[in-house]
């Protein structure tokens, strides 16, 4: 017997796995280089989403889970800190994903530049044409 929240989280994870499969299909089997770049961005985003789902924490007793930023530091009530540690999500995957997004941007820019050079040399961005040219 699963609760309704776990059912919705299952739907979310299933959709992310389907997205990952579709993006892998686009990277492997589409011959166009620009389509490969688009599929690669979707692949990176989906992988980052998996890292965030690992760090997510479900709601405890009807209280919403909260971002890992403690904003009530002015008050001296220790109960607020206890509630924060009970309900905040894990900040470590978010810190890793933050780096991964920026590195993905750099890799995508490099691939775009390589595709532009391939167009200037071969006048084609299709992998079948480039392979036939033997150069």
């Amino acid at each position: 017997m699963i609760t309704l929240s776990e059912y919705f989280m299952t739907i979310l994870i299933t959709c992310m796995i389907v997205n990952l499969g579709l993006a892998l299909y686009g990277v492997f089997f589409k011959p166009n280089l620009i389509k490969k770049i688009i599929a690669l961005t979707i692949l990176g985003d989906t992988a980052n989403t998996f890292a965030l789902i690992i760090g997510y924490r479900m709601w405890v007793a009807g209280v919403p889970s909260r971002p890992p930023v403690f904003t009530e530091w002015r008050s001296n009530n220790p109960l607020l800190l206890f509630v924060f540690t009970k309900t905040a999500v894990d900040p470590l995957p978010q810190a890793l994903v933050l780096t991964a997004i920026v590195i993905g941007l750099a890799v995508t820019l490099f691939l775009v530049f390589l595709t532009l050079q391939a167009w200037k040399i071969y006048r084609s961005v299709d992998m079948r044409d480039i392979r036939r040219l033997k150069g």
Partner: protein
Amino acid sequence: MSYGEAFLLGITALAAIFSTIATYMAIMERDLLKAVIFSAIQSTIYAFIYYMLMAPDIDLVYIPVAVGLYPAVIIALIKKTTREEKP
């Protein structure tokens, strides 16, 4: 379990289903400019999912990169190369 928790997680699951549809159409589309715009739809929905997963600092980086810079760079690339994908 309250009404709010199930409802908000249901919105997140619905957004995930629409992101799957957008990804499928972006991969299968022949026109590359339409594929880029489907990718932008998928990025917007992912930004909403990140918000619901309580990661606002990820969103502050993800929205300029995935909604702003990726379509700009790929549209500039399509402008310099071809728009139609050969069957």
